[in-house]
């Protein structure tokens, strides 16, 4: 129930932030931000309820995973919003969080008993870190799209309606760098905890599970991106394109593996 209420607020927020993109009125901006905050609170309550009911973090099937992903996206978005106060950012990310919550909120599911393999206190730590990292990359994706849009206009000397609404390249690039750094740290910690957990329960750090492989691939992409920035000063458009590619790989890893490939990361298909 709580999840449906949260979805309702996200819907309101999505409509308002898309309208805000077209008509940048203060009232619309405030509406979408307030409904996102309220939706986030409801979403949090829903997660706590599920946690209490199941006795562990509710992230053990596809729907729960999507729901938790949506929650972490909104969390990181709100943190960024209160730090940078760039309202237009919401128009690029809220719809994504809303879409991610559609399936879990509308199609009912049961939280199954955990397989003995997953019954561990590692679960919460590992999954939270990994999802927060993914959410940071989702934000980086949104910021990169904004950057590409703005950069194109400045480069091609063709100015559309978005030119005035979007922030400056410098701000976008700076935000992007910060978010990717944070996402990379979280992903790294998520992978380390995952490896330690695998070592403790399965005997070796790496199992060759598809989720692990794809996580490594994403990790390499973002590592290369950060490395290029530090060494040769890669920035701007190239970074933005890399961040978009990185997120595409990440989404593929998340959806693709869930839907088509067997992995012990998703016990319902295992």
């Amino acid at each position, binding site marked *: 129930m709580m999840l449906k209420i949260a979805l309702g607020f996200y819907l309101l927020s999505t409509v308002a932030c898309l309208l805000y993109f077209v008509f940048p009125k203060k009232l619309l901006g405030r509406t979408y931000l307030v409904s996102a905050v309220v939706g986030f609170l409801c979403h949090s309550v829903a997660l706590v309820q599920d946690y209490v009911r199941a006795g562990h973090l509710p992230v053990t099937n596809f729907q729960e995973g999507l729901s938790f992903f949506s929650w972490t996206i909104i969390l990181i978005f709100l943190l960024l919003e209160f730090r940078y106060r760039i309202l237009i950012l919401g128009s690029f990310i809220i719809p994504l969080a809303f879409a991610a919550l559609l399936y879990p909120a509308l199609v009912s599911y049961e939280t199954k008993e955990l397989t003995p393999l997953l019954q561990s206190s590692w679960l919460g730590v590992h999954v939270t870190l990994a999802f927060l990292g993914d959410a940071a990359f989702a934000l980086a994706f949104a910021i990169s799209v904004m950057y590409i849009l703005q950069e194109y206009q400045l*480069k091609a000397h063709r100015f559309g309606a978005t030119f005035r609404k979007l922030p400056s*390249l410098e701000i976008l690039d700076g935000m992007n760098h910060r978010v990717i750094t944070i996402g990379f740290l979280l992903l790294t910690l998520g992978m380390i905890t995952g490896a330690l957990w695998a070592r403790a329960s399965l005997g070796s750090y790496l199992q060759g599970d598809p989720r692990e492989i794809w996580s490594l691939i994403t990790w390499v992409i973002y590592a290369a991106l950060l490395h290029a920035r530090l060494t040769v*000063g890669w920035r701007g458009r190239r970074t933005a394109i890399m961040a978009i590619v990185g997120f595409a790989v990440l989404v593929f890893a998340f959806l693709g593996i869930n839907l088509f490939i067997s992995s012990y990361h998703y016990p319902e298909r295992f």
Partner: protein
Amino acid sequence: MPIVLVGLSHKTAPVELREKVCMPDMALPDQLARLKSPPVPECVIVSTCNRVEVLAHCPEAHAGITAIKQYLAAGSGIAFSDVEPHFYTLAGSKAIQHIFRVASSLDSMMVGEPQILGQIKNAFAAASKEGATGVVLNRLMHKAFSVAKRVKTETQIARYAVSISYAAVELAKKIFDDLSEKTVMLIGAGEMSELAARHLMDHGAKRLLVTNRTYSRAVELAEEFSASAIRFEDFTDSLIRTDIIISSTGSPTYILGHQQVKTVLYERRNKPMFMIDIAVPRDLDPAINRLSNVYLYDIDDLQAVIDTNIQERRKEAEKADEIVLAEVGTFERWLDSLDVTPMIVLLRERLEQIREEELARTLPRLNGVSKKEKKAVEAMASAIVNKILHGPLQALKAENRSDTRDQLIEILKEIFQLEQTRKGPPQKP
């Protein structure tokens, strides 16, 4: 009493004519004194290089308009028949709308330019100092100022840069968020490029470097801007710490090429650069724009930015016109209420007069009544007056169609014999 406006502007008259009709600010007091006359008791003269207009509140529109036209023609020293076709005359709501549009810079040659409001404020100050404005024009002009303010805050009409130098600042702010850590380099000299540099500095740029083929000229300019001069032969060495370049030299060939900038960018670790090439022939190789993190604009690119901004201003002007129309409505309602006010005053006076007379007659005749009882009688008389007034006043205030209101006023005048109250005490029946 109608409000009228007579004038000519860049839309109706060529500059040769405008400059003859136009009058300097300092001449306004004399001019107002010349214009003020029985047909034009209240007037404001607005005179700028693009328009000369007289706004007046006259007892009779036609006589007022003729007087103003003759006055303007006489001042110009040109035959009346030669000037007359260039005048536009507006009356009533059209005149109100026009002055609101002028004050909001909607009628300007460059829509949204900010000077006109100040010029109109001066015109009004001069007129009111000369005692040429009454209740209506005072109110109208103050309303025009507030409409202009509304237009400025509620539309984006003035937000779009329409000059090369402001366009440069606008673009710089979309590339760099904050100019306070940025260095600007001015290569060559020229009015437009110096203006652009000045605007960038005004918007917080940290440092300005100036270079010129003639070093002494660079030093001169640098002093003027409190900037540092660099030798033209060495300017490429400073590019690594330069974020914004404004170039306008007379060089027949490119002074900066693709490969040079590529090297500089590498050394700058790809920190973005904004280059403005105002020179014709161009100073900066257009191929530079193909490099990542460099944004090169030549004079045509900037002109294109300005052209689209002018389009944007026009769009905003449409919104502004809606505001103006709404405000014209508000002002007209106020004007209408002026018609009712004297009637209300008359009616109240008439009834008060009756009350006082009747009290004066009755109270002395009452013997043996206490002060308290006298008070009660007085209170009753007041209450009766107020009760009788209530109905007609409500009806007057509620009636907002002017023809039916005039009927109502006539009826009330007849019933209460109001015309006579002015002349003397009413006849007793």
